[in-house]
């Protein structure tokens, strides 16, 4: 059984089609990225899957149940975009309510609230009202509520928006460490961020499914992305073209370039490249196996 199935899913508002005939199926496992420009339909798709809005056409199922079904309570969780807790009641009290609604007893609820607040490093905020917290802290509390219990699927809509780099990293680490038991679907504009922990990418644009990419598969297709320390790379790029196995070189932003090579005849091209750089006294900032997510999807 697929974790999520959408068949010809459409959502129309009075003057706009937010989702246009989207069909996809997603398996449980590694984190999944949901990307696309503003207005692409990412939030609408998440809202339909959570049962917050009803599809105009088509159908969707999560873990074999229709969105909004009581059977999904405690199994599907989410960080809805801009959803906030009641600003007047303490964080701990509200999370205990959520835990109680997930059929946890009083003791278990208290323990689980402590656990999730610890995960987002906000144990100290348990007795504070959300109104007393900063934007970033409120976001982390909202992420904490999505981890209550043991949800099988967690939809995170822009989880790192507005967070500082330290907290972005801690949220990323949290997702990676929780991925063994939970499948995360993460919507974000930050492709570099998503690339670090997602293996599948759902690309929406103008409400339509543009692409569904398995990053682990495309990384095998004979690409290396390299960024050198020195800024003037014209000569080195020309020399690289003459390396055995190289079929193409595409210049990217800020001195980076993607080298395409014939992987079938040169399976160890990366070692060959490193030797070439050493022979030419070149140092590099980074080398990525494959192309960046941005390059794969937009160029």
């Amino acid at each position, binding site marked *: 059984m697929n974790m999520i199935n959408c068949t010809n899913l459409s959502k129309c508002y009075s003057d706009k089609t937010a989702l246009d005939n989207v069909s996809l199926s997603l398996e449980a496992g590694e984190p999944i990225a949901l990307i696309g420009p503003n207005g692409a339909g990412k939030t609408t798709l998440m809202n339909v899957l*959570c049962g*917050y809005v009803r599809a105009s056409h088509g159908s969707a199922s999560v873990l074999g149940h229709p969105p909004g079904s009581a059977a999904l309570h405690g199994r599907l969780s989410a960080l*809805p975009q801009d959803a*906030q807790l009641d600003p007047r009641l303490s964080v701990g009290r509200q999370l205990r*309510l*959520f835990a*109680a609604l997930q059929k946890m007893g009083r003791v278990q609820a208290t323990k689980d609230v402590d656990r999730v607040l610890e995960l987002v490093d906000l144990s100290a905020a348990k007795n504070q009202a959300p109104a007393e917290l900063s934007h970033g802290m409120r976001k982390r509390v909202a992420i904490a509520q999505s981890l209550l219990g043991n949800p099988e699927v967690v939809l995170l809509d822009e989880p790192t928006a507005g967070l500082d780099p330290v907290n972005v990293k801690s949220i990323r680490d949290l997702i990676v460490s929780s991925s063994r038991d939970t499948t995360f679907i993460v919507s974000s504009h930050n492709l570099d961020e998503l690339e670090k922990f997602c293996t599948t990418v759902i690309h929406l644009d103008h409400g339509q499914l543009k692409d569904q990419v398995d990053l682990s598969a495309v990384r095998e297709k004979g690409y290396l992305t390299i960024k050198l320390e020195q800024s003037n790379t014209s000569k080195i790029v020309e020399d690289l073209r003459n390396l055995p196995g190289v079929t193409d070189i595409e210049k990217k932003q800020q001195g980076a370039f993607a080298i395409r090579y014939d992987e079938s005849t040169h399976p160890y091209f990366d070692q060959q490249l490193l030797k070439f750089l050493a022979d030419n006294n070149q140092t590099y900032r980074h080398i990525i196996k494959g192309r960046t997510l941005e390059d794969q999807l937009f160029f």
Partner: protein
Amino acid sequence: MTIARFELVRLFLTMRGWLSLIAFCLIWSILLRYLVYNASGYLLDEKLSLSIGGLTGNRGVQNLLAWPVPEITIFWILALYLFPFFSIILTADQTASDRSRGTLRLINLRATRDEIFFGRFIGQMVIQSLLIIATITTVIGLAIWRDADVFTSSLSLSALVSTNLFVVLLPYTALMALVSVLAKSARQATVYATILWIVCFIFIAWLAPQFPQLTFLEWILPGSQLSSLLQKEGWDTLSLAYIPLMQASILLLVGRWLMQRGDL
């Protein structure tokens, strides 16, 4: 039931809840001190009896004067018109602000829309029941303070009045549950309820004389049975309970439909 129970937390552990309670207590303490406490004297006052007659008709005055505990008589008349007013204010924010803030989405991950809608409604009815009990207990205290012999009759009259008030408040609370689904804040919900009530009132007042067969429409409005209720005696007052019960059922059904249909 968890959602209904949490309504008590929302009332007793928030500043807004406490402000509502303080306002309620202040108004009732003034009414209890200056009207209910001197009830026996007022009921002998001819002018006041005439005013009550304006509300209830002559038969109503005779019925009310026959009640053995005048404090409860005055409380009954006041409560019948004031509790609905408090109800509209106290129960306005059943789902409105939680929806506009997105809190309802977090709850909906753990509870169905029906559980949220009916849970909040039940919670509000529990709160109002507690307020009715607290107020009438004070009234009984005042009556016993004057004459300890009225204790037994106070208890039976209190049960009658409390039951009737609970039934009277059902459609008002259901109406606020409905408009709360449409509104984005408690204030907006109150405005919607007021507009809805006035429009229906004017429409029915205009329609009924032209189409006498449609006079039954006057029973659509919550509170339409209040003046008739004052003319009933004892537990016979519950003979009109079908009106608020039907109003509440219809309003809840419409509210539930809107809750199911709308976006969160």
